[in-house]
């Protein structure tokens, strides 16, 4: 099977392509496999130590890789993972072959957009009112969690179309806070 991977780094995004024969979904699995990555052929001896934790020998080099889905960070066509290899951490977007016909959504910053809670907590202050015009970086809401007050700011200028939450409300990661148009 052929899988596309987008690697997000501080400096930007890199595209990679990896090919190998399907390995089945046996919960406790492992073995040797040939794979081709960005044109280079490699052999790997892999085994899953815990769910999402892989011990991989590429040639004889030993790597322990932790694969964790990024919380609430799922696209329709791809899955984003935080992947840790020793001291290194990668943000990888794996394009599931079963959905390859779709293409990435474009126009990131167009149309009305929902601002979502990046973490659980309690709304201690709402800093904007509906229909208020705001500039980029302006404070929107203050969320308290673990004894810290976290001010969420506007990622771009716009008008506050709706405010979904009330002060004092408890919130979960990913719920809608307000809509920006």
């Amino acid at each position, binding site marked *: 099977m052929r899988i596309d991977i987008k690697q997000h780094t501080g400096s930007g995004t890199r595209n990679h392509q990896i090919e190998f024969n399907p390995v089945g979904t046996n919960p406790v699995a492992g073995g040797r496999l040939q794979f081709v990555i960005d044109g280079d052929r490699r052999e790997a001896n892999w085994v899953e130590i815990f769910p999402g934790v892989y011990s991989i020998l590429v040639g004889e080099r030993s790597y322990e890789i932790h694969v964790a889905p990024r919380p609430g960070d799922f696209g329709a066509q791809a899955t984003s993972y935080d992947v840790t290899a020793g*001291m290194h951490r990668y943000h990888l977007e794996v394009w599931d072959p079963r959905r390859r016909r779709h293409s990435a959504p474009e126009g990131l910053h167009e149309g009305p957009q929902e601002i979502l809670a990046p973490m659980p907590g309690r709304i201690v202050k709402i800093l904007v009112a509906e229909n208020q015009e705001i500039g980029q970086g302006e404070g929107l809401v203050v969320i308290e969690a673990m004894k810290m007050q976290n001010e969420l700011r506007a990622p771009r200028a716009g008008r506050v179309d709706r405010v979904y939450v009330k002060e004092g409300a408890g919130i979960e990661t990913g719920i809608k806070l307000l809509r920006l148009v």
Partner: protein
Amino acid sequence: MFKKILIANRGEIAVRIMRACREMDIRTVAVYSDIDRKAQHVRDADEAYHIGPASSSESYLRIDRILDAARRSGAEAIHPGYGFLAENPDFARACKEAGVTFIGPPVAAMELMGSKTAARRALLGAGLPVVPGTDRNIESLEEVRSIASEIGFPVMLKASEGGGGKGLRLVATPDELESAYRDARSEAQNAFNNASVYLEKYIGRPRHVEIQILGDHHGNQIYLGERECSLQRRHQKVMEECPSPIVDQDLRRKMGEAAVRIGALAGYTNAGTVEFLLDQDRNFYFLEMNTRLQVEHPVTEMVTGLDLVKAQLKIAAGEPLAWRQDDIQMRGWALECRIYAEDPANNFFPSPGLITRLKVPGGPWVRDDGGVYEGWSVPLEYDPLLSKLAVWGNDRPEAIARMRRALGEYNVSGIQTNIPFFRHVLDHADFIAGRIDTTFIDRALTGGWVGDIESVDPEAERAAMLAAALHASRKGSSQPSPVTRGSKWKTAGRDSLLNNCPARRSRRP
């Protein structure tokens, strides 16, 4: 010695105190809120008393319920740990009235050190070094002007009841003074419900170096060397070391003796910490005194070989100190990292939730003081400190190498932690050279910092991609969360600008 004590705290410090008690055959009494029934400190205790709902104002801050638990359990003494009621004189007084020993200093010492201006007055009176400035609240703009010009710019306006960097204003020139004065007062009013401010000379890029002292009830006071606490993020300590890279024998003696004099001045007993600011010329100025056990006490323990919690218990039980000043020998170097449930790749947002896997580092000279376990769900009601990872080495380079190794072994799954962040600190040339001050982290690291570390090993990168691809192909992609549609916004949210600062009046202990 006590037969039974109550620990009026939770998390790692409650666990730490109970460990000392078990080694001394003292029975332990835990208190817990609804959400903490399965918490580590409840599992470890000999007895456990429920004291209310999750919100700390309804549980861990409820003096009445804690004293009731002490009465019912027959505990002879109460250890407050740090935070919560640890520096609350009313609690210490209430213990006294209830006939329970408060394991800490006398009420008067707590009250004196609780007020910054009062403490400044006391020290100035005794000719001890404080940052030049006023020793009382400033009542008018005129007063500010005259004093500021006396001291010389730049100056700092500080909230008298302040902490955690609130009600704080740096004033570089005279013409900024008026607005800064107005802002500082209103911010202080909002934050601490008290508008009083006072003036200090601004010390550029200071170091935060503190001295550990012990005092018994027989007039003995000693110091146990210093701790370097300049590594702070937004006024929160994140990493500490003992000794300090810039403190030599001579300076250690000077600061230690000053700290002991300050302790004596306050009639201090038990364990306390005198915090100093050091300027570029290594002049030291009193900052404040913490009248309780410090979060970072393990680095002092590893270097001196003394168990500070046991010392606290013995002092509270009336025993004289077992050591004279010249018995205190410092050996090697210790570092501590505070492991917080926060996401460094996401503006250090808090990251509560279920710990699905926990692997703590081990082996030579590695110490983990944890308060959580695999399967525990970290609540969002309390401080995000999961654990303190401390290491010891023969010298600073060995300690740094060992901390790097230990962090590499540390694995917390299910929630995000600041572990990857520490790897950056440890690799930074200025840190390695010991060139640090309280602005170092905000200047050098969190600013442009991103959670991903650029790989230096292309083979590791390939292995990572293979693992991710294998995982996706085997598990299929996970269930889209409610967030799916907004995912781009989610991403935007993750990278959006953020401020976070302590929600409590005083900064984290």
